């Protein structure tokens, strides 16, 4: 199993994801520069968080046209796991690999804090180590994380069980307070129909070592573990 972590100009969680893969999980992983990329030989790809191209124009929109995205697209078509975290999620949406849009947070401010996520779909290759309805703790850190999709799109998302994570209270219930950015239906993460592309705003790599969690939890680690279980 070998994972590529893409480095766009302005990515800033690339080394963090790489650290979790290599030092915490002991997986082979490489940082792959967006311009020289060829993803042959990789079994999965992660688009990390950050501010690719400074979020200029619109978050993720410039990176979506980067040379490496052709390769990412090929991986998607081949059914390989493709995970986009935060800015990586925004890039996947801008590249049309996931539906919907990520808009400015409802409070018009950057928000960095730990939130609770309810697992809505545990049948993806990223989430099968969770129980359905399980509540996870992970931090968010973004300015443009308010998920939106038109009513027809939302209907489709639901029909194909593509809503993977929702923001909730610690007990799994919803409140206005538990939705940190005003996302439609408190959506925090979605997948494509085939289930091999996952995008989420929270940072699982920041919730993968007990020492870094205010709760001593490692809820994010299971996403990476699930990918590894695929083998390759």
């Amino acid at each position, binding site marked *: 199993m070998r994972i590529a972590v893409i480095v766009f100009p302005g990515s800033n969680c690339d080394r963090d994801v790489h650290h979790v893969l290599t030092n915490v999980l002991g997986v082979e992983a490489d940082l792959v520069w967006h311009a020289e990329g060829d993803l042959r030989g990789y079994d999965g790809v992660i688009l990390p968080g950050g501010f690719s191209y400074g979020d200029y124009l619109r978050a993720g929109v410039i990176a979506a046209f980067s040379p490496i995205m052709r390769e990412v697209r090929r991986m998607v078509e081949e059914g390989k796991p493709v995970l986009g975290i935060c800015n990586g999620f925004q890039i996947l949406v801008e590249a049309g690999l996931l539906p919907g849009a990520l808009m400015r947070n409802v409070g018009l401010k950057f928000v960095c804090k730990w939130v609770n996520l309810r697992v809505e779909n545990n049948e993806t290759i990223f989430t099968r180590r969770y129980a359905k309805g399980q509540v996870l703790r992970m931090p968010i850190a973004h300015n443009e994380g308010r998920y939106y999709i038109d009513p027809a799109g939302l209907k489709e998302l639901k029909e194909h069980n593509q809503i993977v994570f929702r923001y909730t209270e610690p007990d799994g219930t919803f409140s206005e307070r538990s939705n940190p950015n005003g996302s439609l239906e408190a959506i925090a993460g979605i997948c494509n129909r085939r289930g091999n592309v996952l995008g989420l705003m929270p940072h699982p790599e920041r919730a993968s070592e007990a020492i870094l969690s*205010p709760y001593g939890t490692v809820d994010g680690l299971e996403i990476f573990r699930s990918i590894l279980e695929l083998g390759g």
Partner: protein
Amino acid sequence: MKRAKQLKLNLTEEEVDHLRRELGREPNDLELAMADAEWSEHCSYKSSKPLLKLLPTQGKHVILGPGYDAGVVDVGDGYVLTAHIESHNHPSAIDPYGGAATGVGGILRDILCMGTRPIALLDVLRFGSISTSSHSKWLFKHVVRGISDYGNCVGVPTVGGEVEFDESFERNCLVDVVCFGVGKRSDLVLAEARYPGDSIMLVGGLTGRDGLHGSSFASAVLTEKSEQERSAVQIPDPFAEKMIIEATLEAIATGRVRGLKDLGGGGLSCALSEVAAKGSTGVEVDLTKVPLREEDMHPIEIMISESQERMLFIVQGGYEEEVAKIFRKYGVRCAVIGKVTDDKHMTIKRGEEVLARIRADLLANAPIIYRSAKKPQYIDELRKAPKPEEPRDLAQRLLQLLSLPNIASKQWVYEQYDHEVGLKTVFKPGQTGAAVLRLPNGKFIAVRADGNSKHCFLDPYNGAAGVFAEACRNVLAVGTEPIAMLDHLQFGDPSNPEVFWTFSECVRGIADYAKSLNIPCIGGKVSFYNEDRVSGKAIKPTPVVAVIGLAESFDVLTKCYFDAGMRVLVVGETRSELGGSEYYESIHGLVGGVVPQVDFDYEKRLHRCMLKIMNLRLAKAVEDVSKGGLAAALAEVCIKSGVGMVIDLKEVPHRCERVDEILFSETHGRFIIGADRRDESRIKRICASFNIPCETIGEAKGDDLVFESGVRRIEVKVEELERAWRSAIPRLMGDEV
């Protein structure tokens, strides 16, 4: 050089004379402008240098003290921690967003140009009252947004900070940034050009007209015209900075980078003279090689422009292309603009034409100005201010105190900062006073910056020493040992003897504390002229002290969370020292009284005592006592722990006459400790062995914070305390709660 004449210079007559004497001829306009930038107070420390010599700079961890872009301490196993403190006060006062953002950018490059990766930022902010002034609210909002947008984008976490509101900052907000970096000792690079023949490369953004005279602008008081000087504020581009950070670290890894300096105050002129003076060499540059943003820039403008996101690289001759290739990969512009020479001069050319030629050390060493100092009259008068009446409803006062912006939760601020990126932040903002970060060698550092302008105004000596003591308490409270400090000294116009007296007292206070506690100063900054002509007022003296604590292992790290059933102990005696306290100033409207005094011998014993308790892991929770006194500290602990406490005030070691004094006095040298019943007596025995007062004052239980004094009983629901504490700033800033 007609345009040059129009550029107004701040050089004094004596300074021009000095230049003339040293050169043995009339300096030309370009040389004058270069001296003007370099000899500005901001760059030269010409007023403060003699006093700053009081600060001790040596210590067992210190590799490099003040004088470079950042201080360097040894954290073991071949790793070093770099640290620096800076401010961007004047720019932020007229352009809060751009000023604050570029302040962050500047300090990141200071850390970067030591060859270390920036790993954390702290922000120390000062504004006027956000309860009464919409101007201050505007500044506060946009300064925080500027820091947030810049720090978040470059991917360096802002792990903590401190905010104080006081009317003296209404026109002159203070925006201080502390930055820390980590690297291998073997990768350190200095701002020196040591080898003649090496190439000088200018890397990063284009040189433009933004930031012209930034240093001179920062070295004068703000006037009614300052609003029109927005061109002196640079334009932030965090994405460009991020590319420079990655490209620089990759370039250093080639081993061909022999010197590195960021372009900050004074622009190219300052950077060139410093690398030459420090390396005992000379430099020769051709201005036609400098990539410009605008075509028709005058040589003076090119030399003193403070355009952001630029670095000066000294690259081993013959390896320019190897380094340039890395910059191209990141889309970072670079140009060889000249070479290192052996003639100890700075030679500025346009093609073959020599525009300026001046000794590098002459420029790098401004003539010192010895300022006179005079104790202001108000100091003795205000000290004698009569005590206010003790109010009846102390529970109500406590709630009022918790909702003061100076004491209330700063969640509104730190939630806008990414404090997690980099996977190093172990104790995060809101959890503990000091942030704790893990290092690559398995050790931990705690970082904290403190200031207290209200104390310093009334008693600069004890105020400044007290600020230092408070920062130390914060790093001790999480279980780390203070190993080094940085200071940032912010005052009004130094030519005013009363201002200069407060400056001198503050430096003395900090130096005496540093010497007594054996905590070396590894860097600092001085910012004068924080006053404006409109109101004719200077800011209150605002020394800020940042302290670095080190812990060998995770086991000793402690938070401030109490479980029900835990015993509550207080360390240290409470004295009637309410001068400059939040209680006097905001509840009673009284500016005056006796400021908390610092007892250096006691502090020494206290540090050793606390480290012993922490290292034996006897304390399950620790909180330091500062603003708002014992009552505010206990209230915050209850809020964070989600548990009540019953406190017997008769048990608190004190020398006070009234209950409100015990509750709200800001006496230094105190901690609250949470301990299991079985460890209680051991903690007290350790304290006794250091001759430090320590008593059990209560227990964590229930849902209310209760103070009993025999005659009075004060009782407030923790829920109510929390509402007051958490909602105050969002409410003032117009956000829903």
